[in-house]
């Protein structure tokens, strides 16, 4: 089951410059694990160990079907064939 994941400029060093790659899984967490096996190092840029286990990094946004997964179940957000997954680093600063 292939799901397209849009990769932001800053992470394309992990994907040989590709703007989108295919991954698979039934949740965002599984999708990221599959991504990691094909593009080692990328997971650490997306996920950190929080007090309640793995969590999306504070300044990374992941969207499934245009919804920020912070509002839809975080890493447990389900994905299915045809889901659109977009990763965008926050535009933020002090």
């Amino acid at each position: 089951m292939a799901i397209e994941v849009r990769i932001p400029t800053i992470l394309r060093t992990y994907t040989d410059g590709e703007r989108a790659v295919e991954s698979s899984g039934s949740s965002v967490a599984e999708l990221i694990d599959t991504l990691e096996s094909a593009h080692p190092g990328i997971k650490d840029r997306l996920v950190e160990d929080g007090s309640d286990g793995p969590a999306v990094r504070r300044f990374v946004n992941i969207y499934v079907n245009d919804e920020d997964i912070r509002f839809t179940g975080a890493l447990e957000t389900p994905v299915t064939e045809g889901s659109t997954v977009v990763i965008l680093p926050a535009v933020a600063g002090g």
Partner: protein
Amino acid sequence: MLTIEREIHDAIVAHARRDHPDEACGVVAGAFGSDRPSRFVPMVNAAMSPTFYEFDSGDLLRLYREMDDRDEEPVVIYHSHTATEAYPSRTDTNLASEPNAHYVLVSTRDGAHESGPVDFRSYRIVDGEVTEEEVTIVERYPDAPIDSTAPSTDPKRESA
């Protein structure tokens, strides 16, 4: 070097003054690879803070989708400092994620939000390293060297 039209420069300054004492933020999009900031897009500072700025995550997705559809990229990413100089903070440097963008900082400190010149400076921020660059303000950009209507740049027309 950043080359920017006066009208866009003035719009960034006006946005910074309007939102003072909170930080103002936004982008100037331009055709992919052109290095020419042409479409001014002020954004809402979701943090609504005098010391921090962040694009709302929904706004961010819409912005990037729109730029994708138009074959654009964020040529300039700007924000204001309202009590400190127009130089990237440690947080700015750590969170900078567009190595191809010009990071513009303006400062509205010391009453600059009401009158007088507003400091307007530009930087490249790559892998945590900040490099200031010259800013050149022009009245109008010269005619685009790459014109999408020119036959020589249209492969379909060349092969026809």
